[in-house]
């Protein structure tokens, strides 16, 4: 089975019925790299921010998991604070990935993490600590980053 057919199908479904807050740029040549924009949810420190995200699909997709990387810097415990900006989602780990899982589920979960960071599965442990010890400072910092990088 060729992975491109499934990818085309999934893209078509997301185009016809988009996830709120998630905009997928049209794919012209390379259907294995999707450029996505996620809107920071209202009521979070990421509100009013637009975050550029790159969804990369391996050629073995759906047998290997996709990866999600934030191109826009974000102060978030589940996104690595380096030049990669990888978002760690449990379901995207090679050992936990299920080929039956759809990209819609993946992107919906990523959106949910913006709304509500998962402190139990964080890459940036220092941010988790700050959230626990001084939540206001975390909010302040996340807002500053949003304003600086994502507006």
């Amino acid at each position, binding site marked *: *089975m060729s992975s491109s*057919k*499934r990818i085309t*199908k*999934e893209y078509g479904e997301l185009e016809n019925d988009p996830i709120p807050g998630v905009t997928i740029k049209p794919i012209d040549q390379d259907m294995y790299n999707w450029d996505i924009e996620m809107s920071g949810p209202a009521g979070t420190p990421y509100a009013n921010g637009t975050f550029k995200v790159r969804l990369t699909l391996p050629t*073995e997709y*759906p*047998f*290997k998991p996709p990866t999600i990387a934030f191109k826009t810097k974000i102060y978030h415990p589940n996104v690595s604070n380096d030049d990669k900006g990888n978002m760690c989602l449990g379901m995207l780990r090679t050992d*936990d990935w*299920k*080929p*039956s899982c*759809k990209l819609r589920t993946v992107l919906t979960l990523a959106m949910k993490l913006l709304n509500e960071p998962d402190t139990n599965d964080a890459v940036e442990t220092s941010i988790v600590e700050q959230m626990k010890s001084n939540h206001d400072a975390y909010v302040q910092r996340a807002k500053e980053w949003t304003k600086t990088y994502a507006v």
Partner: protein
Amino acid sequence: MTSATSPNPAPVFDIRALTYVTHVDDNLCCPICQSPLVEPFTTSCRHTFCSECITNALKASKTCPVDRTPLDTKNINMAPVVLANLVNDLTVLCPNHRDGLGCTATLPRGNVEGHLKEDCLYVTVACPGCEEKIMRKDLQDDVCVHVEEECSYCSGMHRKLDMKEHETVCPGLTTPCKFCGNECPRPQIPNHEAICDEAIVSCDAASVGCPWHGLRKESTDHSTSCPLMHIRPLLEENNSRLANLEHENKLLRRRLELSLVARAQTDIAESMDDQTIRVLTEQEHIRSDLERLYVSMQEMDIKQNMLSMHMSDNMRTKEEVAMIGAAVNNLRTQLHGLQLLMFRRQGLDQNGSGGARPTGASSQAGDNSVLGHARRMSDMPSGDRVKL
């Protein structure tokens, strides 16, 4: 699969590229390729996939693609026949449908292979005469369609394959003109219709509002009497000037809007400074430009109204002239009668060649009586219109 003896090798088609006529329930779709199941196989954990998909999945990971239960090829078995039948009965378009241009067949998915092999007209097959590949629809009995033969209408040489298409443009085949009914070679129909006397045409001045429609042979008569034809150049010039003004107006309005935006932005950034004043002055200029344009557009409107009024006046005058002409002719015959009567009464002898001079002399007196008559006629109801 392909053998020299079989003229029609087994058709190749991508079963996952088929178009399903109706929405297919998610339960009938494979969780891996997300298309309707092809040769469904079920795992020991009771999940179902296409045989090809689950084979590939196990090469990547020895777990179920849905619930990650450890799996091996021995844990996989053919799904119940009822499920296989269900997916094979789903209705699809023939793979040669080409967005409605090719084959129009809709059929159960399980019949696609047979259809392509035996029936589909849009499959390439070997020409029985020369082995060249042609569409099944172009086959003609057992003869080669690539041999040229003579067209029975025009004697031109065409391949059997192209003959049907040739007949739609064959110069030897005639067809009746839809206007005059004359038989005409098909390729010449457009040229003929462009000059056919019986074709329905509109007036050349239709663009400036002449509603006339009629036979082409009557259109010359119409254009000589069409008042709009005469003033068409004028009207067209007016229209283009109006269009120019509207365009200019639009440009100016955009400039005005831009400067308003610029002013608003400047207001935020700085208070009244040189730039603001400049923008304001410019805006004033534009505003007066706009007013000027508006006035001249209104003038154009008035002119155009006057023109059309003149036009109807013209037409009315024409009618009046015709009426007066008729009245004059009428009077002339009356006068003639009166003259005869007068001469007879005066007892003058009007025999022979001398008649011309006295008639000329009396015609002056006659003119007066015509005027008198005309004045009396103007008292009649139609006289009101003459005065206009």
